């Protein structure tokens, strides 16, 4: 993929994530901070389908943005065909791994498998 396209994805995921993370943080402020972290409250959040979908979107957007950012930083430090391939595929693998692990939490909690 062209770097210009990757940077457009990088900026797009950033803007979308800012909006969704703002909602995620505001949900912590609708009640007391400690109360919002209580087991029953968090469980109810996960079981509310629109909120679970939003968490999944945040997970995907931030994983793409975060690991592409890491890839850019690592490619700034050193260049070379083998190194660049290793960094790009390594970041891609880490991104998919994190999305899979986070999705597992969201899906299992939403389905009541706790």
């Amino acid at each position, binding site marked *: 993929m062209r770097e210009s396209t990757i940077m457009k994805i990088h900026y797009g995921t950033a803007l979308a994530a800012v909006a969704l*993370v703002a909602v995620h943080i505001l949900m912590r402020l609708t009640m007391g901070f400690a109360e919002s972290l209580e087991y029953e409250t968090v469980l109810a959040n996960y079981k509310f389908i629109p909120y679970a979908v939003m968490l999944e979107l945040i997970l995907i957007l931030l994983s793409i943005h975060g690991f592409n950012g890491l890839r850019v930083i690592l490619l700034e430090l050193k260049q070379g065909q083998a190194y660049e391939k290793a960094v790009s595929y390594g970041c891609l693998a880490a991104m998919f791994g994190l999305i899979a*692990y986070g999705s597992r*939490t969201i899906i299992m909690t939403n389905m009541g498998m*706790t």
Partner: protein
Amino acid sequence: MTQDEHKEGIKGMANPSRYGIERVAYWLMRLSGLGLLAYFVAHIYETSNILRGQVGWDEFLELTQTTEGHLFLAIVIAMCVFHTVNGIRVMLGHGGVGVGKPARPDYPYDPASQNYRHKIGIYSAIVLAAIAMMYGLAVMFGE
């Protein structure tokens, strides 16, 4: 330019005290990005403890809901706000917003893109990050 003038290598490039607030912003952007990525990975792991049931969740909360945990979270809030505001500035700059018109380079060759608009953007990002951090501390310790 002789070889000697390059002798500092990557250290010279990285020196945040030599090239003004733009180089400081460059470093803060990368450090906050790496910090936020580390926090994000930790947060995904932290929230997966809900699968261990109420006992597992409460055990993990005991570790994070401490004074040190709240201070750490306040730093995360500051990194998040700085990274967002400075990121929007960088995006606008890449889109050609606020970088000035193309012109013939004349002595003393001040880059048109490093103007007061972008400097204000960087300082605003730092100030907003500090305000958000204070607000976060007030919320977390105000209970």
